C-alpha cells in the first residue's frame, strides 16, 4: 500500500479577538490507499480542524495553516504539498481527488436543488460531462449507494428524503469522481443507530470496491472498532496515541485513550441481577481550553498517573511497539 496522505507537523491557527488561537499543534498522520484511518477525539480536540486543513476549507481570513506539510499523492502519481497549493490548484483536487462527507445530512444538501443535480455537480465540474451524461452518472451513483428506484429518486428534492437517505446521497456525491481519498467527518453521528450501521456497512463495501483511502473522523469508539484499520487519538490539538485498531483496543497505552474506553457504558449482568446499577466511569475534569492550555502534557490535569515530569514539557511520542506510538512518558506504568 502506498502512502496517499502524509500530514506532518501540521499547525492550524485561528485569529480571534483575544489573539491567535492554536487548534492543531503539530499533527502527524498517514493514510494509505485502501485503508481507513480513524481520527478520534472529543469536541474541541482539533480533529475537524485537521480535516478542514487537509481540504483547505478553513474559514477564510480567520483560519490558517501556520506550519507543516500535507503531502498528497494524486491520481497522476505526483506528490504535492496541499498546504502550499493556491486556491485554483486546490479547487481541482476538491470533490475530485479528495472528497468530504459531513456530519449533518439534513443541512448539508442544498434545499432548492434536486439531489441528482447535486450528485452530478462534481462530475460536471471536474470531468466536464454533458448534462445527460451527468444525469446518468448521478443515477449510477444513487444505485451504487443502494437507493431503490434511482432514476426516480434523482429528481427528488432533499426534503423529500429521510436522514439516512440523505447521507447516502452525500456519499454518492462525494464518490461521483472516484476520489483517491475520502474524508468523512462524523458521517453517522446525526443518524439513528440502525441507520448508522447500514451507512457504515455501505461505506466499507464502497471502500473495498473503489480502493480509496478513508480518513474517518469520529468521537465514537464503537464506530472505530467497526470501520478502522488504524486509529489516531487526538487530545488538545495533538495526536496522543496511534496504533492499529486491534492493538489500540487490546493495549491502550495512553491514559486518555484508556479513559475513553473505560467511559463506554457497560452492563454488568451480575450486578444487575443483584439490583445494583453499573456506574458510568467518566474522565474527570473537562477538555483543554485552547486559550489556556496546561503546562506540559495537555492531559496532565485530568490524569491519575501524572507526575511532576508530566507538567514540565509536552512529551514526545514513545514507541510501544513498531506501529504503536503514545505521547505518554508513563505508558509502561499504565500497562504494568
Amino acid at each position, binding site marked *: 500500500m502506498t502512502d496517499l496522505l502524509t500530514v506532518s507537523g501540521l499547525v492550524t491557527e485561528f485569529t480571534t479577538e483575544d489573539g491567535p488561537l492554536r487548534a492543531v499543534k503539530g499533527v502527524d498522520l498517514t493514510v494509505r490507499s485502501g485503508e481507513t484511518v480513524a481520527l478520534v477525539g472529543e469536541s474541541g480536540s482539533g480533529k475537524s480542524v485537521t480535516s478542514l486543513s487537509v481540504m483547505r476549507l478553513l474559514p477564510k481570513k480567520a483560519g490558517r495553516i501556520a506550519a507543516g506539510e500535507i503531502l498528497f499523492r494524486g491520481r497522476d502519481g505526483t506528490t504535492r504539498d496541499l498546504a502550499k497549493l493556491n486556491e485554483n490548484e486546490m*479547487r481541482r483536487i476538491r470533490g*475530485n481527488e479528495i472528497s*468530504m462527507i*459531513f456530519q449533518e445530512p439534513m*443541512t*448539508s444538501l*442544498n*434545499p432548492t436543488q434536486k439531489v441528482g443535480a447535486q450528485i452530478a455537480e462534481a462530475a460536471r465540474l471536474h470531468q466536464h460531462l454533458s448534462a445527460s451524461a451527468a444525469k446518468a452518472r448521478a443515477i449510477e451513483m444513487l444505485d451504487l449507494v443502494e437507493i431503490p428506484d434511482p432514476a426516480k429518486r434523482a429528481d427528488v428534492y432533499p426534503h423529500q428524503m429521510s436522514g439516512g437517505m440523505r447521507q447516502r446521497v452525500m456519499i454518492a*456525491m462525494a464518490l461521483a469522481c472516484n476520489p483517491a481519498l475520502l474524508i468523512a467527518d462524523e458521517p453517522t453521528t446525526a443518524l439513528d443507530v440502525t441507520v448508522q450501521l447500514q451507512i457504515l456497512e455501505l461505506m466499507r463495501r464502497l471502500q473495498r470496491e473503489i480502493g480509496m483511502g478513508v480518513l474517518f473522523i469520529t468521537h465514537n469508539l464503537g464506530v472505530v472498532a467497526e470501520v478502522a484499520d488504524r486509529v489516531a487519538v487526538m487530545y488538545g490539538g495533538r495526536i496522543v496515541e496511534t496504533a492499529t485498531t486491534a492493538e489500540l483496543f487490546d493495549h491502550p497505552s495512553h491514559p486518555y485513550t484508556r479513559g475513553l474506553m473505560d467511559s463506554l457504558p457497560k452492563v454488568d449482568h451480575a450486578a444487575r441481577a443483584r439490583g445494583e446499577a453499573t456506574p458510568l466511569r467518566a474522565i474527570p475534569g473537562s477538555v483543554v481550553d485552547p486559550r489556556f492550555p496546561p503546562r506540559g502534557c495537555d492531559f496532565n490535569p485530568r490524569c491519575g498517573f501524572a507526575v511532576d515530569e508530566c507538567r514540565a514539557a509536552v512529551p514526545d511520542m514513545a514507541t510501544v511497539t513498531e506501529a504503536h506510538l503514545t505521547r505518554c512518558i508513563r505508558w509502561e506504568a499504565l500497562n504494568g
Partner: protein
Amino acid sequence: MSLSYLLRRLGGAIPLLLGISVILFAIIHLAPGGPLDMYLENPSVSPEAIEQMRTAYGLDQPVPVQYFLWLKSMLAGDWGYSIRTGKPVLSEILNRLGPTLQLSGLALGFAFIVAMPLGVISATRRGSKLDTGLTLFSFAGISTPVFWMALLFQLLFSVQLGWLPSAGYQSVGDGSLVDRLRHLVMPATVLSFAIIASWSRYIRSGMVDVLNQDYIRTAYAKGRTEIGVVVLHALRNAMIPAVTVIAVDFATIISGAVITETVFAWPGIGRLFMEAMDGRDYPILMGLMMLGSFGIVLANVIADVTYAALDPRIRYG
C-alpha cells in the same frame, strides 16, 4: 399550485378590501374641508349654487349613506366622476398610469439590477471596507428624505450643470423619445436610490444567512469557485426572504411615487393623488386607494407564488 388556489387567495381578499374601503372612506371624510370649499371664496359662485352642487353630488347625505351609495356604484363597475374636473375617475386614473409605469418601471428595474450585486458583494465581503462603505451608503439612502434628495439633484444637474430639465414630462413643443428620456432620468434615479438602499440590505442579510449554511461548505468541498457557490447555490436561497419586501415595494411604487412625482411635476398617479388630496376629490381618492390596496394584495399573492417557485419545500394546496 393550482388555479383554484389563486382564485381562492384573491377571493379571500374581498372582505379585506371591503374593510379597507370602510376605513378609508371614514378617514377621508374626517379630514377637515370638502370638495366644494374651493368655491367658497369665489365671488362669482353664489351660496345657492354651492348648495345645489352639494345636493347634486350627494354630499348633503350622512357619511354612511354616501359610503353605501359609493359602494353600490363601485360594485356595478361605476367608479364615479371627479368632483374637480367632472371626468370619469377611471379615465383620469388611466390617463396618469402611463407616465407612472414609465417612471416606476425604470426605477424598479434599475434598483433590482443594482441592489442585487450590491447586496451579494456586501455579504461575501462582510466586515471589509467595501461592506462598511456600502452599509453607509444604504443607511444614507434610507435616511435621506426623497424630496430633499430630489432638490439636491435638481440643483446639481439642472441649475449648476444644466444637463437635464428640472421637472416635467416633456418639453413644450417637443415630444421626442430623447426629450422624454431626459425628463425621465432624474426622477427615476432619485426614486431608485432609496429602493436600492433598502433592497440591498435585505439581499445582504439573506445572503449572509445562507453563506453560513452547511450546504455552502458542501459546494466548496466539491471544488466550486466562490462565484460558482454564490450564483449556483446561495443566490436562489438568499432571495427567498427578500421576495416579500420586493413584491410589496413594487406594488407601493407602481401605485404612485407621490413625493417624487410631485417634486418633479411628473404627471403620474402619485401627483394625481396629491391633487385629489388638495381638492378633497373623494371619488378620485377612493378609486386610487382601492387600486393601491388591491395592488398590495396582488403583490402578496405574487410573492407567495414566487416563494413556491424558488423553494421546492413550499407547496400550496
